[in-house]
Protein backbone atom coordinates (compact mmCIF):
# COMPACT_ATOMS: atom_id res chain seq x y z
CA UNK A 1 0.00 0.00 0.00
CA UNK A 2 2.71 2.37 0.98
CA UNK A 3 4.86 1.91 -2.11
CA UNK A 4 2.24 2.23 -4.81
CA UNK A 5 1.42 5.60 -3.34
CA UNK A 6 4.94 6.91 -3.79
CA UNK A 7 5.34 6.48 -7.51
CA UNK A 8 2.08 8.16 -8.51
CA UNK A 9 3.22 9.87 -11.66
CA UNK A 10 2.44 13.55 -11.48
CA UNK A 11 4.55 16.27 -12.89
CA UNK A 12 4.07 18.56 -9.95
CA UNK A 13 5.65 16.28 -7.38
CA UNK A 14 9.36 17.01 -7.20
CA UNK A 15 11.15 13.64 -7.16
CA UNK A 16 14.73 14.35 -6.19
CA UNK A 17 17.34 11.66 -5.80
CA UNK A 18 18.14 12.40 -2.19
CA UNK A 19 21.25 10.23 -2.11
CA UNK A 20 23.14 12.76 -4.25
CA UNK A 21 22.75 15.59 -1.79
CA UNK A 22 23.83 15.27 1.76
CA UNK A 23 21.71 18.30 2.76
CA UNK A 24 20.65 18.28 6.35
CA UNK A 25 16.93 17.98 7.02
CA UNK A 26 15.25 20.65 9.14
CA UNK A 27 12.59 19.66 11.68
CA UNK A 28 9.96 22.37 11.90
CA UNK A 29 6.98 22.58 14.26
CA UNK A 30 3.86 24.00 12.61
CA UNK A 31 2.89 24.23 16.22
CA UNK A 32 -0.45 24.34 18.01
CA UNK A 33 -0.50 28.11 17.46
CA UNK A 34 -0.22 28.54 13.69
CA UNK A 35 -2.43 30.85 11.67
CA UNK A 36 -3.56 28.17 9.27
CA UNK A 37 -3.75 24.88 11.15
CA UNK A 38 -7.48 25.42 11.63
CA UNK A 39 -7.14 25.24 15.38
CA UNK A 40 -4.74 23.48 17.72
CA UNK A 41 -3.10 20.83 15.57
CA UNK A 42 0.69 20.40 15.75
CA UNK A 43 2.40 19.20 12.57
CA UNK A 44 5.95 18.06 13.10
CA UNK A 45 7.32 18.61 9.60
CA UNK A 46 10.72 17.50 8.32
CA UNK A 47 11.82 19.89 5.58
CA UNK A 48 14.59 19.45 3.04
CA UNK A 49 14.87 23.09 2.00
CA UNK A 50 11.29 23.83 0.95
CA UNK A 51 10.23 20.26 0.22
CA UNK A 52 8.37 18.29 2.88
CA UNK A 53 9.89 14.87 3.42
CA UNK A 54 8.07 13.69 6.55
CA UNK A 55 5.07 14.79 8.61
CA UNK A 56 3.86 13.59 12.01
CA UNK A 57 0.54 15.15 13.09
CA UNK A 58 0.22 15.47 16.91
CA UNK A 59 -3.37 15.57 18.09
CA UNK A 60 -5.03 15.79 21.46
CA UNK A 61 -4.63 19.49 22.12
CA UNK A 62 -8.42 19.81 22.22
CA UNK A 63 -9.32 16.39 23.68
CA UNK A 64 -12.35 17.34 25.81
CA UNK A 65 -13.25 13.81 27.02
CA UNK A 66 -16.57 13.66 25.11
CA UNK A 67 -17.08 9.93 25.64
CA UNK A 68 -16.43 10.17 29.40
CA UNK A 69 -19.13 12.89 29.66
CA UNK A 70 -21.60 10.79 27.67
CA UNK A 71 -21.31 7.98 30.20
CA UNK A 72 -22.25 10.32 33.04
CA UNK A 73 -25.20 12.25 31.57
CA UNK A 74 -28.65 11.15 30.44
CA UNK A 75 -29.82 11.14 26.83
CA UNK A 76 -31.12 14.70 26.75
CA UNK A 77 -28.07 16.11 28.47
CA UNK A 78 -25.70 14.66 25.84
CA UNK A 79 -27.09 16.85 23.01
CA UNK A 80 -25.09 19.98 24.10
CA UNK A 81 -21.90 17.87 24.17
CA UNK A 82 -22.67 16.48 20.72
CA UNK A 83 -23.00 20.07 19.44
CA UNK A 84 -19.50 20.83 20.59
CA UNK A 85 -17.93 18.02 18.53
CA UNK A 86 -17.85 19.69 15.11
CA UNK A 87 -18.68 23.18 16.34
CA UNK A 88 -18.85 24.63 12.83
CA UNK A 89 -21.82 22.46 11.80
CA UNK A 90 -23.49 21.84 15.16
CA UNK A 91 -26.96 20.85 13.90
CA UNK A 92 -25.48 18.20 11.58
CA UNK A 93 -23.87 16.61 14.65
CA UNK A 94 -27.17 16.42 16.48
CA UNK A 95 -28.89 14.74 13.52
CA UNK A 96 -27.26 11.25 13.74
CA UNK A 97 -27.23 11.23 17.54
CA UNK A 98 -30.92 12.10 17.79
CA UNK A 99 -31.83 9.52 15.12
CA UNK A 100 -29.80 6.88 16.98
CA UNK A 101 -31.68 7.52 20.24
CA UNK A 102 -35.03 7.53 18.40
CA UNK A 103 -34.18 4.22 16.72
CA UNK A 104 -33.23 2.67 20.07
CA UNK A 105 -36.26 4.06 21.89
CA UNK A 106 -38.57 3.32 18.96
CA UNK A 107 -39.90 6.89 18.72
CA UNK A 108 -41.60 7.88 15.49
CA UNK A 109 -41.10 11.48 14.34
CA UNK A 110 -43.75 13.44 12.41
CA UNK A 111 -43.37 14.41 8.76
CA UNK A 112 -43.01 18.12 9.52
CA UNK A 113 -40.18 17.57 11.99
CA UNK A 114 -38.24 15.47 9.47
CA UNK A 115 -38.45 18.13 6.77
CA UNK A 116 -37.57 20.89 9.25
CA UNK A 117 -34.56 18.89 10.43
CA UNK A 118 -33.39 18.37 6.86
CA UNK A 119 -33.75 22.09 6.14
CA UNK A 120 -31.84 23.13 9.28
CA UNK A 121 -29.12 20.62 8.41
CA UNK A 122 -28.84 22.09 4.91
CA UNK A 123 -28.67 25.70 6.20
CA UNK A 124 -25.91 24.57 8.55
CA UNK A 125 -24.15 22.73 5.70
CA UNK A 126 -24.10 25.92 3.63
CA UNK A 127 -22.75 27.88 6.63
CA UNK A 128 -20.01 25.28 7.12
CA UNK A 129 -19.01 25.17 3.46
CA UNK A 130 -18.89 28.99 3.40
CA UNK A 131 -16.38 28.83 6.24
CA UNK A 132 -14.46 25.91 4.69
CA UNK A 133 -14.02 27.68 1.33
CA UNK A 134 -13.06 31.01 2.91
CA UNK A 135 -10.56 29.36 5.30
CA UNK A 136 -9.10 27.56 2.27
CA UNK A 137 -8.80 30.94 0.52
CA UNK A 138 -7.20 32.40 3.65
CA UNK A 139 -4.55 29.68 3.59
CA UNK A 140 -3.64 30.74 0.06
CA UNK A 141 -3.36 34.35 1.21
CA UNK A 142 -6.63 35.84 -0.10
CA UNK A 143 -8.14 37.62 2.90
CA UNK A 144 -11.18 39.31 1.29
CA UNK A 145 -13.17 36.18 0.27
CA UNK A 146 -13.24 35.23 3.97
CA UNK A 147 -15.14 38.41 4.78
CA UNK A 148 -17.52 38.23 1.83
CA UNK A 149 -18.54 34.67 2.76
CA UNK A 150 -18.81 35.52 6.47
CA UNK A 151 -21.39 38.12 5.50
CA UNK A 152 -23.54 35.27 4.07
CA UNK A 153 -22.78 33.10 7.09
CA UNK A 154 -24.29 35.80 9.32
CA UNK A 155 -27.65 35.33 7.47
CA UNK A 156 -27.51 31.57 8.12
CA UNK A 157 -26.63 32.06 11.79
CA UNK A 158 -29.42 34.65 12.05
CA UNK A 159 -32.05 32.19 10.79
CA UNK A 160 -30.84 29.41 13.10
CA UNK A 161 -30.68 31.87 16.01
CA UNK A 162 -34.31 32.87 15.51
CA UNK A 163 -35.22 29.16 15.42
CA UNK A 164 -33.22 27.91 18.38
CA UNK A 165 -32.01 30.95 20.29
CA UNK A 166 -28.27 30.33 19.92
CA UNK A 167 -25.88 31.47 17.16
CA UNK A 168 -23.39 28.63 16.95
CA UNK A 169 -24.21 25.68 19.28
CA UNK A 170 -27.94 25.14 18.98
CA UNK A 171 -29.13 22.24 21.20
CA UNK A 172 -32.18 22.44 18.95
CA UNK A 173 -32.89 18.80 18.04
CA UNK A 174 -33.93 16.34 20.74
CA UNK A 175 -35.13 12.72 20.66
CA UNK A 176 -38.73 12.94 19.45
CA UNK A 177 -38.76 16.34 17.77
CA UNK A 178 -37.40 19.83 18.03
CA UNK A 179 -37.11 22.09 21.07
CA UNK A 180 -38.93 25.26 19.91
CA UNK A 181 -41.65 26.04 17.37
CA UNK A 182 -40.83 27.56 13.96
CA UNK A 183 -41.03 31.36 13.99
CA UNK A 184 -43.49 33.01 11.62
CA UNK A 185 -41.52 34.22 8.57
CA UNK A 186 -39.04 31.32 8.52
CA UNK A 187 -39.78 30.52 4.89
CA UNK A 188 -39.33 34.12 3.76
CA UNK A 189 -35.92 34.32 5.50
CA UNK A 190 -34.80 31.07 3.87
CA UNK A 191 -35.83 32.41 0.45
CA UNK A 192 -33.83 35.63 0.98
CA UNK A 193 -30.89 33.58 2.28
CA UNK A 194 -30.82 31.31 -0.80
CA UNK A 195 -30.79 34.23 -3.24
CA UNK A 196 -28.00 36.06 -1.41
CA UNK A 197 -25.88 32.88 -1.14
CA UNK A 198 -26.23 32.21 -4.87
CA UNK A 199 -25.21 35.79 -5.64
CA UNK A 200 -22.23 35.59 -3.29
CA UNK A 201 -21.06 32.26 -4.73
CA UNK A 202 -21.25 33.69 -8.26
CA UNK A 203 -19.04 36.58 -7.11
CA UNK A 204 -16.73 34.15 -5.27
CA UNK A 205 -16.09 32.16 -8.43
CA UNK A 206 -14.81 35.29 -10.15
CA UNK A 207 -12.76 36.48 -7.19
CA UNK A 208 -11.14 33.30 -5.92
CA UNK A 209 -12.16 29.94 -7.39
CA UNK A 210 -11.18 30.66 -11.01
CA UNK A 211 -8.37 33.07 -10.13
CA UNK A 212 -5.29 31.86 -11.98
CA UNK A 213 -2.96 32.29 -9.00
CA UNK A 214 -5.39 30.26 -6.84
CA UNK A 215 -5.64 27.57 -9.52
CA UNK A 216 -1.87 27.38 -9.80
CA UNK A 217 -1.66 27.01 -5.99
CA UNK A 218 -4.18 24.19 -5.77
CA UNK A 219 -4.41 22.08 -8.91
CA UNK A 220 -2.45 18.79 -9.06
CA UNK A 221 -1.50 19.18 -5.39
CA UNK A 222 -2.18 16.65 -2.64
CA UNK A 223 -3.29 13.92 -5.04
CA UNK A 224 -5.50 11.33 -3.33
CA UNK A 225 -6.14 8.28 -5.58
CA UNK A 226 -9.54 6.59 -5.35
CA UNK A 227 -8.44 3.25 -3.81
CA UNK A 228 -6.31 4.98 -1.17
CA UNK A 229 -9.30 7.15 -0.23
CA UNK A 230 -11.46 4.05 0.27
CA UNK A 231 -8.71 2.33 2.21
CA UNK A 232 -8.38 5.32 4.53
CA UNK A 233 -12.20 5.30 4.85
CA UNK A 234 -12.42 8.93 3.71
CA UNK A 235 -15.90 10.31 3.24
CA UNK A 236 -17.55 13.57 2.31
CA UNK A 237 -16.01 16.18 -0.03
CA UNK A 238 -12.56 14.55 0.45
CA UNK A 239 -13.84 11.26 -0.99
CA UNK A 240 -16.10 12.83 -3.59
CA UNK A 241 -13.18 14.97 -4.74
CA UNK A 242 -11.35 11.75 -5.64
CA UNK A 243 -14.24 10.35 -7.64
CA UNK A 244 -15.99 8.13 -5.04
CA UNK A 245 -19.75 8.47 -5.46
CA UNK A 246 -20.53 8.00 -1.73
CA UNK A 247 -23.07 10.29 -0.05
CA UNK A 248 -25.18 8.86 2.79
CA UNK A 249 -28.07 11.12 1.85
CA UNK A 250 -28.28 9.12 -1.38
CA UNK A 251 -26.80 5.72 -0.50
CA UNK A 252 -28.80 5.23 2.75
CA UNK A 253 -31.45 8.01 2.73
CA UNK A 254 -32.38 8.87 6.31
CA UNK A 255 -35.04 11.19 7.68
CA UNK A 256 -36.81 12.91 4.76
CA UNK A 257 -33.93 13.03 2.27
CA UNK A 258 -35.67 10.64 -0.13
CA UNK A 259 -38.34 13.33 -0.73
CA UNK A 260 -35.82 15.85 -2.11
CA UNK A 261 -34.29 15.39 -5.55
CA UNK A 262 -30.75 16.73 -5.71
CA UNK A 263 -27.56 15.26 -7.17
CA UNK A 264 -24.15 14.75 -5.62
CA UNK A 265 -21.22 16.69 -7.12
CA UNK A 266 -18.41 14.17 -7.73
CA UNK A 267 -15.19 14.90 -9.60
CA UNK A 268 -14.74 11.74 -11.72
CA UNK A 269 -11.14 11.06 -12.87
CA UNK A 270 -12.11 11.69 -16.50
CA UNK A 271 -14.46 14.66 -16.24
CA UNK A 272 -12.72 17.52 -14.38
CA UNK A 273 -13.34 21.23 -14.70
CA UNK A 274 -9.80 22.26 -13.70
CA UNK A 275 -6.88 20.18 -12.50
CA UNK A 276 -6.88 16.45 -11.75
CA UNK A 277 -9.49 14.50 -9.79
CA UNK A 278 -8.33 14.05 -6.21
CA UNK A 279 -6.36 17.30 -5.92
CA UNK A 280 -7.01 20.24 -3.60
CA UNK A 281 -8.91 22.22 -6.21
CA UNK A 282 -11.44 19.47 -6.93
CA UNK A 283 -12.11 18.93 -3.20
CA UNK A 284 -12.86 22.62 -2.93
CA UNK A 285 -14.93 22.50 -6.11
CA UNK A 286 -17.11 19.76 -4.59
CA UNK A 287 -17.87 22.08 -1.66
CA UNK A 288 -18.70 24.97 -3.99
CA UNK A 289 -21.13 22.74 -5.90
CA UNK A 290 -22.63 21.31 -2.71
CA UNK A 291 -23.70 24.80 -1.65
CA UNK A 292 -25.72 24.96 -4.87
CA UNK A 293 -27.27 21.53 -4.15
CA UNK A 294 -28.17 22.54 -0.61
CA UNK A 295 -29.88 25.66 -1.97
CA UNK A 296 -31.94 23.37 -4.23
CA UNK A 297 -32.93 21.22 -1.25
CA UNK A 298 -33.93 24.31 0.73
CA UNK A 299 -36.10 25.53 -2.13
CA UNK A 300 -37.94 22.22 -2.29
CA UNK A 301 -38.11 22.22 1.51
CA UNK A 302 -39.95 25.55 1.51
CA UNK A 303 -42.70 24.05 -0.64
CA UNK A 304 -42.76 20.70 1.20
CA UNK A 305 -42.81 22.07 4.78
CA UNK A 306 -46.48 21.91 5.98
CA UNK A 307 -47.60 24.99 7.90
CA UNK A 308 -49.94 23.40 10.41
CA UNK A 309 -48.95 20.79 13.02
CA UNK A 310 -46.59 21.33 15.92
CA UNK A 311 -42.98 20.19 16.05
CA UNK A 312 -42.52 20.07 19.81
CA UNK A 313 -45.31 17.87 21.13
CA UNK A 314 -43.71 14.65 19.88
CA UNK A 315 -41.08 14.84 22.62
CA UNK A 316 -41.66 12.14 25.27
CA UNK A 317 -41.83 13.58 28.80
CA UNK A 318 -39.83 10.70 30.33
CA UNK A 319 -37.33 9.28 27.78
CA UNK A 320 -37.22 5.49 28.24
CA UNK A 321 -34.45 3.78 26.19
CA UNK A 322 -34.51 -0.06 26.34
CA UNK A 323 -31.20 -1.98 26.34
CA UNK A 324 -29.56 -2.49 22.94
CA UNK A 325 -26.98 -0.96 20.65
CA UNK A 326 -27.18 0.86 17.32
CA UNK A 327 -24.82 2.59 14.89
CA UNK A 328 -26.61 5.45 13.15
CA UNK A 329 -24.86 7.56 10.50
CA UNK A 330 -25.67 10.76 8.61
CA UNK A 331 -23.96 12.93 6.01
CA UNK A 332 -22.23 15.58 8.10
CA UNK A 333 -20.65 18.51 6.26
CA UNK A 334 -17.20 16.87 6.53
CA UNK A 335 -18.40 13.37 5.63
CA UNK A 336 -19.96 10.37 7.36
CA UNK A 337 -20.62 11.14 11.02
CA UNK A 338 -21.96 8.20 12.98
CA UNK A 339 -22.80 7.46 16.61
CA UNK A 340 -22.37 3.94 18.07
CA UNK A 341 -24.80 3.99 20.99
CA UNK A 342 -24.84 1.15 23.58
CA UNK A 343 -27.55 1.44 26.21
CA UNK A 344 -28.14 -0.81 29.20
CA UNK A 345 -31.75 0.26 29.86
CA UNK A 346 -30.92 2.94 32.44
CA UNK A 347 -31.31 6.64 31.60
CA UNK A 348 -27.53 6.99 31.06
CA UNK A 349 -25.99 5.33 27.95
CA UNK A 350 -23.31 2.74 28.69
CA UNK A 351 -21.07 3.84 25.77
CA UNK A 352 -21.34 6.52 23.06
CA UNK A 353 -18.65 6.33 20.39
CA UNK A 354 -18.54 9.07 17.76
CA UNK A 355 -17.12 8.24 14.35
CA UNK A 356 -15.65 11.69 13.72
CA UNK A 357 -15.08 12.41 10.02
CA UNK A 358 -12.26 14.94 10.48
CA UNK A 359 -10.36 12.41 12.65
CA UNK A 360 -10.50 9.86 9.83
CA UNK A 361 -9.94 12.30 6.96
CA UNK A 362 -6.89 13.81 8.70
CA UNK A 363 -5.18 10.41 8.70
CA UNK A 364 -4.47 10.78 4.95
CA UNK A 365 -2.39 13.97 5.46
CA UNK A 366 1.03 12.32 6.01
CA UNK A 367 0.72 10.00 3.04
CA UNK A 368 -0.50 12.50 0.42
CA UNK A 369 1.68 15.52 1.22
CA UNK A 370 5.17 14.02 1.02
CA UNK A 371 7.26 15.52 -1.76
CA UNK A 372 5.30 18.77 -2.00
CA UNK A 373 6.49 22.16 -0.79
CA UNK A 374 5.72 23.55 2.67
CA UNK A 375 3.24 26.07 1.23
CA UNK A 376 1.41 23.16 -0.46
CA UNK A 377 1.19 21.28 2.83
CA UNK A 378 -0.80 24.20 4.25
CA UNK A 379 -3.07 24.08 1.18
CA UNK A 380 -3.59 20.30 1.47
CA UNK A 381 -4.51 20.70 5.15
CA UNK A 382 -6.95 23.47 4.19
CA UNK A 383 -8.54 21.32 1.46
CA UNK A 384 -9.22 18.43 3.87
CA UNK A 385 -11.16 20.96 6.03
CA UNK A 386 -10.79 19.57 9.53
CA UNK A 387 -12.29 20.93 12.75
CA UNK A 388 -10.24 20.15 15.84
CA UNK A 389 -13.23 19.68 18.12
CA UNK A 390 -14.17 16.66 16.05
CA UNK A 391 -10.63 15.39 15.57
CA UNK A 392 -9.80 15.34 19.27
CA UNK A 393 -13.35 14.77 20.64
Amino acid sequence: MENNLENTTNNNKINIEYSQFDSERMRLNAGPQHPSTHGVLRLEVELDGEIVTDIIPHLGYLHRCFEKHCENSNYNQIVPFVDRLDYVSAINNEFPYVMAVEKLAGIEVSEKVQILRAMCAEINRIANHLLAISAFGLDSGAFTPLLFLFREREFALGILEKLSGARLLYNYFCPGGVRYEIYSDFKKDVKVFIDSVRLAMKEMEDLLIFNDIFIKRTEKIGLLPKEVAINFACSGPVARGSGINFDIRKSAPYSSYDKFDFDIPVVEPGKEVVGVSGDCWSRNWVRVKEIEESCKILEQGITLLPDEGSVTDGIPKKLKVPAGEVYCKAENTKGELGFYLVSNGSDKPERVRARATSFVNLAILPSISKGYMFADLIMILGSIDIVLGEVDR
Partner: protein
Amino acid sequence: MGLLNALDNPINADGIILGKVEDLFNWGRAKSNWFLQFGLACCAIEFMAVNASHFDLMRFGNIPRSSPRQADYIVISGTVTLKMAERIKILFEQIPEPRYAISMGSCANSGGPYWQHGYNVLKGIDRVIPIDVYIPGCPPRPEAFEQAVLKLQEKISMEEIFKKRERVAQEDKMLESMLKAEENNFIENVNKHI
Protein backbone atom coordinates in the same frame (compact mmCIF):
# COMPACT_ATOMS: atom_id res chain seq x y z
CA MET B 1 -10.59 59.00 31.20
CA GLY B 2 -10.27 62.71 30.61
CA LEU B 3 -7.99 62.60 27.65
CA LEU B 4 -9.68 59.54 26.18
CA ASN B 5 -12.87 61.38 25.33
CA ALA B 6 -11.32 64.72 24.49
CA LEU B 7 -8.84 63.20 22.06
CA ASP B 8 -11.55 61.18 20.37
CA ASN B 9 -13.64 64.11 19.34
CA PRO B 10 -11.28 67.09 19.34
CA ILE B 11 -13.92 69.27 17.61
CA ASN B 12 -16.27 69.65 20.55
CA ALA B 13 -13.31 69.71 22.96
CA ASP B 14 -12.98 73.13 21.30
CA GLY B 15 -9.54 72.31 20.09
CA ILE B 16 -7.66 72.33 23.40
CA ILE B 17 -6.83 68.88 24.74
CA LEU B 18 -5.73 68.87 28.38
CA GLY B 19 -4.39 65.73 29.99
CA LYS B 20 -1.40 64.11 31.57
CA VAL B 21 1.30 62.37 29.52
CA GLU B 22 0.23 59.18 31.25
CA ASP B 23 -3.23 59.55 29.75
CA LEU B 24 -1.70 59.96 26.31
CA PHE B 25 0.29 56.74 26.69
CA ASN B 26 -2.71 54.90 28.09
CA TRP B 27 -4.88 56.23 25.25
CA GLY B 28 -2.32 54.98 22.71
CA ARG B 29 -2.21 51.53 24.29
CA ALA B 30 -5.95 51.30 24.72
CA LYS B 31 -6.91 52.36 21.25
CA SER B 32 -4.49 50.27 19.23
CA ASN B 33 -4.60 46.96 21.01
CA TRP B 34 -3.38 44.30 18.56
CA PHE B 35 -4.48 40.76 19.42
CA LEU B 36 -2.74 37.46 18.72
CA GLN B 37 -4.46 35.47 15.94
CA PHE B 38 -4.97 32.34 18.02
CA GLY B 39 -8.12 30.27 18.43
CA LEU B 40 -8.79 27.08 20.31
CA ALA B 41 -12.34 25.80 19.86
CA CYS B 42 -15.92 26.95 19.22
CA CYS B 43 -15.29 30.43 20.64
CA ALA B 44 -12.61 30.88 17.94
CA ILE B 45 -15.32 30.57 15.27
CA GLU B 46 -17.36 33.25 17.06
CA PHE B 47 -14.12 35.23 17.39
CA MET B 48 -13.69 35.04 13.58
CA ALA B 49 -17.27 36.26 13.23
CA VAL B 50 -16.35 39.28 15.41
CA ASN B 51 -13.48 40.06 13.03
CA ALA B 52 -15.73 39.70 9.97
CA SER B 53 -17.54 42.62 8.39
CA HIS B 54 -20.76 42.28 10.40
CA PHE B 55 -19.32 43.02 13.85
CA ASP B 56 -16.04 44.57 12.69
CA LEU B 57 -13.51 44.40 15.55
CA MET B 58 -11.17 46.74 13.63
CA ARG B 59 -13.44 49.63 14.65
CA PHE B 60 -11.79 49.41 18.08
CA GLY B 61 -8.31 49.47 16.51
CA ASN B 62 -7.69 45.74 17.04
CA ILE B 63 -5.70 44.26 14.17
CA PRO B 64 -4.92 40.50 14.04
CA ARG B 65 -1.19 39.74 14.36
CA SER B 66 0.05 36.21 13.82
CA SER B 67 3.30 36.51 15.82
CA PRO B 68 3.18 36.87 19.62
CA ARG B 69 6.04 39.36 19.50
CA GLN B 70 3.89 42.00 17.83
CA ALA B 71 0.66 41.28 19.73
CA ASP B 72 -0.65 43.19 22.75
CA TYR B 73 -3.25 40.90 24.15
CA ILE B 74 -4.14 37.26 23.75
CA VAL B 75 -7.71 35.95 23.61
CA ILE B 76 -8.11 32.48 25.07
CA SER B 77 -11.11 31.45 22.97
CA GLY B 78 -11.98 27.84 23.71
CA THR B 79 -11.30 24.85 25.94
CA VAL B 80 -7.81 24.73 27.41
CA THR B 81 -6.61 21.17 27.73
CA LEU B 82 -3.73 20.19 29.99
CA LYS B 83 -1.66 19.35 26.90
CA MET B 84 -2.26 22.88 25.56
CA ALA B 85 -1.90 24.75 28.85
CA GLU B 86 1.92 24.78 28.84
CA ARG B 87 1.91 26.05 25.25
CA ILE B 88 -0.42 28.92 26.16
CA LYS B 89 1.85 29.81 29.08
CA ILE B 90 4.84 30.00 26.71
CA LEU B 91 2.80 32.00 24.19
CA PHE B 92 1.68 34.49 26.81
CA GLU B 93 5.24 34.97 28.03
CA GLN B 94 6.42 35.68 24.48
CA ILE B 95 4.15 38.70 24.21
CA PRO B 96 6.09 41.93 24.98
CA GLU B 97 5.47 43.46 28.39
CA PRO B 98 2.42 45.74 28.50
CA ARG B 99 0.29 42.65 27.72
CA TYR B 100 -3.24 41.65 28.63
CA ALA B 101 -5.37 38.54 28.36
CA ILE B 102 -9.06 38.05 27.74
CA SER B 103 -10.66 34.74 28.75
CA MET B 104 -13.51 34.18 26.29
CA GLY B 105 -16.26 31.68 26.96
CA SER B 106 -17.14 29.38 29.84
CA CYS B 107 -14.48 26.82 28.88
CA ALA B 108 -11.67 29.33 29.39
CA ASN B 109 -13.30 30.83 32.48
CA SER B 110 -13.69 27.65 34.48
CA GLY B 111 -13.58 24.57 32.24
CA GLY B 112 -17.20 25.26 31.23
CA PRO B 113 -19.34 22.21 30.33
CA TYR B 114 -16.25 20.01 30.81
CA TRP B 115 -15.49 20.93 34.42
CA GLN B 116 -16.93 17.78 35.98
CA HIS B 117 -15.65 14.77 34.03
CA GLY B 118 -13.01 16.45 31.85
CA TYR B 119 -9.87 14.65 33.01
CA ASN B 120 -7.82 16.34 30.27
CA VAL B 121 -9.35 19.82 30.63
CA LEU B 122 -7.75 22.64 32.62
CA LYS B 123 -10.44 24.10 34.85
CA GLY B 124 -10.04 27.76 33.96
CA ILE B 125 -7.11 29.47 32.25
CA ASP B 126 -6.50 31.81 35.21
CA ARG B 127 -4.61 28.92 36.81
CA VAL B 128 -1.88 29.41 34.22
CA ILE B 129 -1.86 33.04 33.10
CA PRO B 130 -3.24 36.27 34.69
CA ILE B 131 -6.53 37.20 33.05
CA ASP B 132 -7.84 40.78 32.75
CA VAL B 133 -11.39 40.35 31.46
CA TYR B 134 -13.64 37.28 31.71
CA ILE B 135 -16.42 36.94 29.11
CA PRO B 136 -19.23 34.55 30.08
CA GLY B 137 -21.17 32.77 27.37
CA CYS B 138 -20.83 29.56 25.44
CA PRO B 139 -19.95 30.95 22.94
CA PRO B 140 -20.43 34.61 23.92
CA ARG B 141 -22.26 36.82 21.45
CA PRO B 142 -19.99 38.98 19.24
CA GLU B 143 -21.48 42.04 20.97
CA ALA B 144 -20.48 40.58 24.33
CA PHE B 145 -16.92 40.29 23.04
CA GLU B 146 -16.97 43.90 21.86
CA GLN B 147 -18.27 44.99 25.26
CA ALA B 148 -15.35 43.13 26.82
CA VAL B 149 -12.93 44.95 24.52
CA LEU B 150 -14.42 48.22 25.75
CA LYS B 151 -14.00 47.09 29.36
CA LEU B 152 -10.36 46.21 28.61
CA GLN B 153 -9.88 49.68 27.14
CA GLU B 154 -11.32 51.21 30.33
CA LYS B 155 -8.99 49.12 32.44
CA ILE B 156 -5.97 50.14 30.35
CA SER B 157 -6.84 53.82 30.42
CA MET B 158 -7.02 53.75 34.21
CA GLU B 159 -3.61 52.16 34.59
CA GLU B 160 -0.91 54.23 36.20
CA ILE B 161 2.54 54.11 34.68
CA PHE B 162 4.58 56.51 36.77
CA LYS B 163 2.97 56.04 40.15
CA LYS B 164 3.60 52.35 39.69
CA ARG B 165 7.34 53.02 39.98
CA GLU B 166 6.80 54.85 43.26
CA ARG B 167 4.55 52.10 44.59
CA VAL B 168 7.04 49.42 43.61
CA ALA B 169 9.79 51.45 45.23
CA GLN B 170 7.74 51.68 48.43
CA GLU B 171 7.16 47.97 48.42
CA ASP B 172 10.88 47.34 48.01
CA LYS B 173 11.61 49.63 50.96
CA MET B 174 9.09 47.77 53.11
CA LEU B 175 10.61 44.46 52.01
CA GLU B 176 14.10 45.59 52.98
CA SER B 177 12.95 46.80 56.38
CA MET B 178 11.27 43.44 57.00
CA LEU B 179 14.41 41.57 55.96
CA LYS B 180 16.55 43.80 58.20
CA ALA B 181 14.18 43.16 61.11
CA GLU B 182 14.46 39.42 60.59
CA GLU B 183 18.25 39.62 60.50
CA ASN B 184 18.31 41.60 63.75
CA ASN B 185 16.19 39.19 65.72
CA PHE B 186 18.09 36.26 64.15
CA ILE B 187 21.33 37.77 65.39
CA GLU B 188 19.76 38.38 68.79
CA ASN B 189 18.77 34.70 69.07
CA VAL B 190 22.29 33.70 68.13
CA ASN B 191 23.72 36.07 70.77
CA LYS B 192 21.27 34.74 73.34
CA HIS B 193 22.40 31.17 72.75
CA ILE B 194 26.10 31.90 72.85
